[in-house]
């Protein structure tokens, strides 16, 4: 194929890429809040989000919903970071856990949310913080839409019980 043909083929890709990166940039705050809602500290959320954005720059086939994609990639990065911290900095992890349990006296939505199982938390955050639909959540978290529905329903009920409602 000629060079002009190659350029014509590249152009839509470059445009798509630009749109993808712009959408990722626009989704930053939502994903950051999603990570905080999942139980990450501010610095952990910053690091996980930064790693996810770097991965977004390298991605070859952009996903349709950047919020969901960034959220899942950031969650994986945060999970790896937690494992590494547990192995190499156990004292810091224990100190962090102790400082969080100090807040047990007050009924705080984020504290109670952090006590839910990870799958329930992820579905609830994807639906209520990121604003993804049931199908988008299912695609992002690699679940069936029905599973998302039932997990989400259970998560709402459990959170409401924890909040004493």
């Amino acid at each position, binding site marked *: 194929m000629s060079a002009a043909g190659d350029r014509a083929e590249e152009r839509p890709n470059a445009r798509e890429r630009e749109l993808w990166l712009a959408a990722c940039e626009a989704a930053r705050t939502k994903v950051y809040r999603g990570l905080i809602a999942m139980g990450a500290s501010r610095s952990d959320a910053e690091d996980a989000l*930064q790693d996810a954005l770097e991965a977004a720059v390298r991605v070859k086939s952009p996903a349709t919903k950047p919020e969901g994609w960034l959220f899942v990639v950031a969650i994986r990065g945060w999970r790896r970071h937690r494992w590494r911290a547990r192995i190499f900095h156990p004292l810091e992890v224990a100190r962090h856990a102790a400082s969080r349990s100090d807040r047990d006296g007050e009924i705080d939505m*984020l504290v109670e949310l952090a006590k839910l199982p990870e799958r329930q938390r992820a579905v609830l955050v994807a639906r209520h*913080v990121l604003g993804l639909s049931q199908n988008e959540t299912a695609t992002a978290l690699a679940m069936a839409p029905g599973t998302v*529905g039932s997990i989400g329903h259970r998560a709402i009920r459990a959170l409401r019980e924890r909040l004493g409602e």
Partner: protein
Amino acid sequence: MTLEQDFDPELARRLDARLAFYAPVGRIPQALPRQSRRGLALAVALAAILATSIAGLGYQINASAESQGLGCLHPVAKIGLFAQGITGSAHDADHASSAQHTDRASHEACHP
């Protein structure tokens, strides 16, 4: 039909209000060069050494059992046999050194 029972608008509003003060600090939105992988290389080298050592020890245990014609033994029994062999040889060495010491003492008594 899937009912949308997994979304609570009131909960979404409350979460939004609770998270309103959280915002990411602006960072450079470009891929940074990857950090040095020295730690990873060291971990891989250590893991390789450990794996080789374990494989070597296993081979030695098996060879030791086979040399005694007990190749059909259970692996745990082979390990026990190998451990017995080590303690036995240490015990023999101890005896040998004490016997050597006695010999030397008697030699020195005869030839001061």
